């Protein structure tokens, strides 16, 4: 455990840490813009920045495989789908006056409260915990492949069933409207 070998103090920046913090600030900033911008498509593009930033953070945490999966699935597919959805629902160019609901102040209070609570708890609990990033890469393809197909095969297969169900569900949802429209 790294806890025993943790002579480093609370503020002892290494190169990785500096990079992590900088990227983290960018990520949170992008996320903030994502949830607050009034331009719908911009929100999606800032989401790309957020997700990409997270991918970099994964890389910094030596979880290489997950980082590329993040890029492949989120940036390559999920965001494209979201953009697709935005365009199909006629997202306008420019500011939408009603991007936020009337709920925003309550939401702000809840979010700030939860952020305060979570940060407080986390800092309180892991004030001096040290992650040892030296040594072998922990999230290499080889490692991930081994644990995934040796120990986690059953959940993996269950997940494939879930994906299939989602696929079927999405097709059914889309087709039903078509048939209804056809009937009209």
């Amino acid at each position, binding site marked *: 455990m790294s806890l025993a070998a943790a002579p480093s103090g609370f503020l002892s920046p290494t190169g990785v840490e500096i990079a992590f913090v900088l990227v983290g600030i960018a990520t949170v900033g992008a996320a903030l813009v994502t949830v607050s911008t009034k331009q719908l498509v911009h929100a999606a593009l800032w989401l790309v920045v957020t997700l990409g930033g997270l991918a970099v953070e994964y890389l910094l945490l030596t979880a290489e495989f997950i980082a590329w999966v993040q890029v492949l699935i989120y940036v390559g597919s999920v965001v494209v*789908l979201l953009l*697709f959805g935005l365009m199909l629902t006629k997202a306008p160019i*420019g500011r939408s006056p009603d991007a936020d609901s009337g709920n925003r102040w309550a939401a702000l209070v809840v979010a700030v409260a939860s952020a305060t609570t979570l940060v407080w708890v986390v800092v309180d609990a892991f004030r001096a915990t040290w992650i040892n990033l030296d040594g072998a*890469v922990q999230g290499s*393809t080889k490692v991930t492949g081994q644990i995934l197909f040796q120990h986690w095969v059953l959940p993996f297969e269950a997940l494939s069933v879930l994906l299939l169900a989602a696929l079927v569900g999405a097709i059914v949802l889309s087709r039903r409207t078509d048939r209804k429209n056809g009937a009209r």
Partner: protein
Amino acid sequence: MNDVLDVALRLVAVLVVFLTFPLVVGQTEHKVMAHMQGRLGPMYAGGFHGWAQLVADGVKFAQKEDVVPANADRRIFQLAPAVALLPYLLVLIAIPVGPHGFVGQAIDAGLFFVLAVMGVGVLGSLMAGWASANKFSLLGGLRTAAQLMAYELPMLLAAASVAMAAGTLSLPGIVEAYHWWWTPWQIIGAVVFFTAGLAELQRPPFDMPVADSEIIFGAYTEYTGLRFALFLLAEYAGIVVLCALTTVLFLGGWHGPWSDSVGWLWTLIKTFVLAFIVIWLRVTYPRMREDQLQKLAWTGLIPLALAQIALTGVVKVVIS
């Protein structure tokens, strides 16, 4: 210090390749198409057979006014070409040219990295299509997105087949593990991969998103000058990347006679042969309709790719 120099050198080499190869491919396309259609093609620029035609084109594009439509989303409109182009540059870093580390940067999950980053390129088309505030552009963007989503899957599956055969995701590792009989073994995957790649590049016959007779020039309708040139550059860079990847994955990369010394040459030769095929296909086949495109992906390529994976798995179990 040596390391830093080494890295810088490699990056510069990649940048050079990125800036020159697409031009070479473009020039080749001009000439090959012209000859296939019974004409000469560019003959004047630079003197000998118009070899500097694309340089001249570039100069012309650079001189043109950079027009942004009034109703467009300015920043995104301007950002889109970069987003479309950059992924190919990044991909080039990971492609091995020759043995013994003749590669920009050997990445552990190289194949994965390559595919993931190429998937980002679609964002550029979508951004361009949406930000132009033009319905033809929007339609083109949507078509692009739909096409990319559809062909991403068979491409990934075909690549997964090779990765299974090699037992690694590293691109140099895959080339290392190559034997000559892999080509017939993985031929289905190769065809699927190459076809899907063509579709992702929106090259003819898969150029429905930019079908000029229907939607002018799709997502790129409103672009002029240098930004338009960047999109064109992205297309040709895409051809280079696709052909190089196909070479690396299915055709054995640097493998060939005297590969230890001239392996990089083998890679380049194979890549350019494939690029020639890409051009050939453009001249040969008519454009496919949107529904035919989707049908080909979902009912043709995906089952084929799955079959290839099954075949790979069976053979893998048998020989091990």
